[in-house]
């Protein structure tokens, strides 16, 4: 009997981590997008809308081109284009970034809903399309691993079941976080991007094109958020559902802040928030005492606590949210 219970808890724990990773993946892409945009000085509240556009275009691509990989690519490109349109409004026309972000979320919701009816003649949900295949990575067959039995059994029991089989975006998202960290903190491009977000006038003075850097960052953030959306519609599910992000763009925004505007911090925050989501789902099946709404609230509560300086302190880039006008001193 006790054997039964221990194996049951083990199963749930592995399952818990697997679903935490899956829930975290779309958040990771979008949060990284947020990091790039805000580091360049553009507040991007529109992440949720861009994800929605990405999710929809991914399904369109998979439906018409019969290839989920092309769907992913189309999501990336359309996310970038949608974000660049946002960029034109806030960079060139210097509109309030928050107001414009809210409007772009509305726009994304309206456009995807409209196109869903127009193209698939369906309200609410698109037809099923080919989703991304699972990748199997045999961590437990790592050469030489069998020489360390303790390690081997740990990998067999935990690493392999948790990390061994996922859709490609799961691996891509984690890789993207490390790549983003490298780009942002170890390359001249990253240095310029951060300079533009901290002190655009100084960056401009030393010859960095502030507008170009911001367009690049916003475009990149759109590409990433678009991928995040595609992860929802082609990775987790295999169709588009109206408003399917259900606020994940805002959780990603919270994760970006919780991670203090750094790619690896955002990665950690997304994994944590994904874990809460998995707990909440598990709680529903097991009937936890703690209401599931508490777990759903937790990311937002924690983010507010971090902003208020209760746990650590998060400070945004100095020029975040401020339009730059070259002609004004």
């Amino acid at each position: 009997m006790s054997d039964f219970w221990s194996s049951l808890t083990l199963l749930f724990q592995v399952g818990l981590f697997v679903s935490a990773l899956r829930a975290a993946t779309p958040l990771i892409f979008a949060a990284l997008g947020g990091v790039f945009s805000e580091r360049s000085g553009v507040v991007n509240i529109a992440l949720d809308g861009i994800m929605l556009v990405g999710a929809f275009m991914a399904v369109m691509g998979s439906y018409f081109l019969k290839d989920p990989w092309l769907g992913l690519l189309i999501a990336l490109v359309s996310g970038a284009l949608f974000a660049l349109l946002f960029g034109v409004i806030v960079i060139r026309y210097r509109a309030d970034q928050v107001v414009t972000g809210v409007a772009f979320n509305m726009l994304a919701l309206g456009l995807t809903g409209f196109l869903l009816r127009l193209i698939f003649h369906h309200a609410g949900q698109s037809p099923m399309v080919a989703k991304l295949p699972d990748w199997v990575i045999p961590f437990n067959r790592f050469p030489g691993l069998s020489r360390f039995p303790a390690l081997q059994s740990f990998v067999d029991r935990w690493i392999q079941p948790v990390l061994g089989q996922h859709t490609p975006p799961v691996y891509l998202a984690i890789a993207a976080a490390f790549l983003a960290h490298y780009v942002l903190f170890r390359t001249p491009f990253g240095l310029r991007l951060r300079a533009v977000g901290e002190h655009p006038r100084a960056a401009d003075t030393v010859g960095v094109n502030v507008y170009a850097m911001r367009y690049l960052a916003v475009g990149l953030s759109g590409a990433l958020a678009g991928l995040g959306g595609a992860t929802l519609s082609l990775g987790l599910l295999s169709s588009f559902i109206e408003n399917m992000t259900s606020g994940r763009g805002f959780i990603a925004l919270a994760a970006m802040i919780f991670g203090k505007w750094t790619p690896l911090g955002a990665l950690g925050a997304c994994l944590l928030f994904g874990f809460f989501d998995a707990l909440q789902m598990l709680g529903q099946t097991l009937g936890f005492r703690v209401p599931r709404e508490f777990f759903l609230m937790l990311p937002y509560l924690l983010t507010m606590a971090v902003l208020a300086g209760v746990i650590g302190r998060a400070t945004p880039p100095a020029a975040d949210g401020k339009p730059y006008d070259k002609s004004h001193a």
Partner: protein
Amino acid sequence: MLAERERAFRPFRLEGLERLWIAFAAVMLALFLGAGFILWAGKSPLVGYQALWQGSFGSLQNFAELTVSMTPLVFTGLSIAVAYRAGLFNIGAEGQFIVGQIAGAWAGAASVFTGWPMWAHLPVTLLAGFLAGGLWAAVPGLLKAYRGVHEVINTIMMNWIALYFTHWLVMGPLRADPIVPRTKDILPSAMLWRFLLPSRANLGIVVALLVALAVWYLMWKTTVGYGIRAVGYNPSAAEYAGIPVARHLLLAMIISGGLAGLGGAVWVSGVQLKFLDIFTFTGYGFDGIAVALLGNNHPLGVVGGAFLFGIFARGAQLMQSVADIPKEIISVVTAVVIILVAADQIIRGLGRRRSSRRAKEVAAHV
């Protein structure tokens, strides 16, 4: 911190007349774009926009329903406008509206108030909504005023917390129906009087207009309002003049949240008569941003903006049901209006280009 508070609120600097022209041009351009979308859907824009018009002005009943759909927008619009005048951006009107709804639904149905006359119970119900919204906004308000944390992120976070919190309340402690998640029906003594039946028109619209008047009085005729506007206009100057900046920021946020919460309670007491869990945002808080922006953050403008977006909200339903035109087009139109008003440079640029071309033509003739 002061530098952050001095964030430029461009709409302030523009003259009223120019704002009106930009708002008008934005709405026209957006409707023009919407016509393009209707054509794309293979329908006639004429039929579509006729349905839009009929939805609000086709009959007395339809007009009565317009007053219903514009009422919450007056409240959320006023909410955002008051915060904006203090230099704050309250994206949290949505959450404040929701907690106002549940507070109103609770106070309207609570057995403590059974037997109370309407003149006492109704104000208590509405006040509960105001307090709940005010309290909800006080959290980001306090963090902004005394810790310098930007209110935008916190109000967004509070929206989601409100959504889950009320969901929990209506699924658990306040649940009154085993099948549909909803609270008890409010008592007749907490209901706003309905007229022009069978429409849902009720005294809520009158309350909304009176509150708009009160907000105008508060903001332009009292010391408190002057203080709030001064802080929004130039916090450093306000501080130098001896106006306690932090206190006014907090106060503006509480009033702003209270107005949105009051809107929620009015919606419950006039229309829904209970809290119904839909588990998504109502959208009134976000549309309120459009309303306030279009109305130049002035109570009179807000009422005008709410009137317009009320027509849109009615029209979206009718375009869909009567003319089979996707109602999502109206979301696109609303979004475009916000973008064009926020990026006023676009419309001013268009105007300037035209006038400069005319100037050249005139010069060529001379």
